[in-house]
């Protein structure tokens, strides 16, 4: 009962403040950006510059092969302006590539350098086989360079046929991918919703420290932990509402909202408790802010791994935001795993309780009057 009245009081106070509305406004802005500025699917076309150092017949044959994948089946004559020079080129556009055929190796080299794209000269070796001279930036990985150096040792047609015959077996059939727009939801909910709790709880506490509210609580029959928890609840409510503002219009009613609410609450509770714990070590916001800022940056690293398939080293997986992001992703996947978000929620809840208990001990020690 005491908890409930404490929560109600905090809620009324929060509704009079500026922060509550900033959170909601921020969620609406993010939603508008996701709906109107983030494309359904990012197009990932790469640009290449080629010079065909081949006999005329060979050039035509090479262009014919490229034209098979061209969107309109036509070569477009274009001019490219770069580094103060103008280059004439023939452009072929497929779903994945924009290929410019230039009239000299120097033009390929210049454009590869100034535009930071791949350049290549196609020529014939002494055995009349196609060979390539690639112009790379220099920072590409050795593995990529290795692949490029042998990629055209075998005829493209032969390779294509063999690749098509290469068998692929899948462990779980019927996976339905999500759109790129939907894929942006987990980081937005995690970073803007769940993690902000850390920052905001610390700010709350310093405000109360300045005003002596916590010290005052220490001499009332009500316990400090109940007071802290009522603050956390207000924050969790804000996280839930702002999270739903972003998720519902994008995902509709196709996802398990029970799981989403559970994970939002568990992760929000964990980060709020962490914010409280950090705040308990410092006597002003500025000092604590340095640590929170640093921690926030570390917690953002799994965000990079989230968007780069194939890059998730072990140490990234042990940063709490990794399971947080994967948990939110699992919830929005059409046939997502239910166990994983449940386990993740349980983990964050347990972690949050431990951190909260530690915080309570620290506040009891430091706020004795």
């Amino acid at each position: 009962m005491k908890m409930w009245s404490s929560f109600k009081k905090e809620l009324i106070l929060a509704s009079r403040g500026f922060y509550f509305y900033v959170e909601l406004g921020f969620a609406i802005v993010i939603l508008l950006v996701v709906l109107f500025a983030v494309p359904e699917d990012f197009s990932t076309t790469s640009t290449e510059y080629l010079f065909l150092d081949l006999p005329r017949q060979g050039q035509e044959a090479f262009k014919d092969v490229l034209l098979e994948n061209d969107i309109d089946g036509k070569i477009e004559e274009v001019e490219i302006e770069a580094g103060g020079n103008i280059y004439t080129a023939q452009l072929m556009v497929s779903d994945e590539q924009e290929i410019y055929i230039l009239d000299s190796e120097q033009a390929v080299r210049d454009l590869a350098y100034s535009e930071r794209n791949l350049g290549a000269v196609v020529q014939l070796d002494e055995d009349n086989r196609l060979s390539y001279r690639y112009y790379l930036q220099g920072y590409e990985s050795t593995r990529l360079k290795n692949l490029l150096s042998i990629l055209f040792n075998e005829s493209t047609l032969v390779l294509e046929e063999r690749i098509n015959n290469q068998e692929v077996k899948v462990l779980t059939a019927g996976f339905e991918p999500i759109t790129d727009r939907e894929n942006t939801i987990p980081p937005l909910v995690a970073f803007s919703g769940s993690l902000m709790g850390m920052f905001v709880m610390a700010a709350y506490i310093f405000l109360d420290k300045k005003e002596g509210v916590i010290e005052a609580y220490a001499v009332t029959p009500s316990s400090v932990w109940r007071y802290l928890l009522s603050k956390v609840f207000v924050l969790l409510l804000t996280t839930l509402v702002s999270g739903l503002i972003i998720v519902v219009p994008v995902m509709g009613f196709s996802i398990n909202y029970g799981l989403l609410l559970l994970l939002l609450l568990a992760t929000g509770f964990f980060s709020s408790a962490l914010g409280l714990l950090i705040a308990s070590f410092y006597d002003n916001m500025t000092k604590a802010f340095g640590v929170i800022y640093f921690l926030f940056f570390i917690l953002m690293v799994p965000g990079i791994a989230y968007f780069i398939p194939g890059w998730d080293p072990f140490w990234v997986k042990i940063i709490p935001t990794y399971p947080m992001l994967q948990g939110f992703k699992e919830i929005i996947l059409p046939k997502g795993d239910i166990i994983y978000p449940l386990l993740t929620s349980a983990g964050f809840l347990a972690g949050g309780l431990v951190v909260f208990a530690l915080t309570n001990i620290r506040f009891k020690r430091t706020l004795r009057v």
Partner: protein
Amino acid sequence: MIKRIWFIFLRDMRINLRELMTIYMLAIPLILAVGINFLSPSINDTSVNLALVEGENQVQAAYFDDFAHVHLMADEQAVRGRVGARDDVLGVLAQENGYYILAQGNEPESVVEYARLLNVLYESDVQLEDARSEIIELGRTVPPLKKMLVNILLLLISMLAGMLISVNILEEKVDQTVAAINVTPTSRRAFILGKGITGMFVAVVSSIAVILITGFYNVNIGQAALVVLSVTMISLIIGFLQGLNSDDFMEAAGSVKLLFLPMAGSIAGYEFVKGNWQIFFYWSPFYWAYRANDMILAQSGTWLQLVIYVGIIMVICGVIYALMAPRVIKGLQ
């Protein structure tokens, strides 16, 4: 007046140093810069991850290692378990007539295609020693992702500087010393500049250190400092608005979050929005700052271009200041 500005700066520095604040603000970006150095090669070496049965075909494992990351597992069951884990790892397993690729089913298509290609190259006996292509490197050593992370860090430093200013003012406000300025010989302008210099100092020193730590030795430090100063102007204005118009840390925290949105949006706009659509970001000083930093880090621009970018930032800041000046002055009263 300069003497008074200097005194305010020294006083802020003394207070911040006493509380280790400035050292924090200076040190954190540097630690993050070291972190970027640590992350960057690992991300740049990202390739497909393949899981193979250990000892089953050592030649194949050695071959794949030249093109992909190879994980050797105890047996087929372990490979299946690894493929079924949360990250994108594909298995290459033997069957009656060759090898098949084992996927979990949710990997990006490009990853599966790469694994298929590698196995075909291996089965076609295409060896690195027989490479017919020549590779010429154009001498760039910094990968684009590293450049992007450093650029983001530079913007964050400026924002951090703004926060330092706002918190300094907020603490004066809480201690009720802002109004006291009015009865001292120090003018409001001197107070504003004095308070601002601390943040600017932190921003410029941290930014230059970050640029050097991350290995951009050849960039024009003068150009970089100019952009940092111009972005700090944005933070300065916002820092003052936050500090003077917030009654408590909660409000300042809310304003910080509001500030992150145009910054993140500008970065995303510059990196992901193509061609003429970038015009929608021209209003944002962060967009121009990011663009200018990108040019400096890539060592691809001219002083004229930089002056134009910085000029645009200053004009936008001027407009913001003109709009907000009455609130700053009111806050000082």
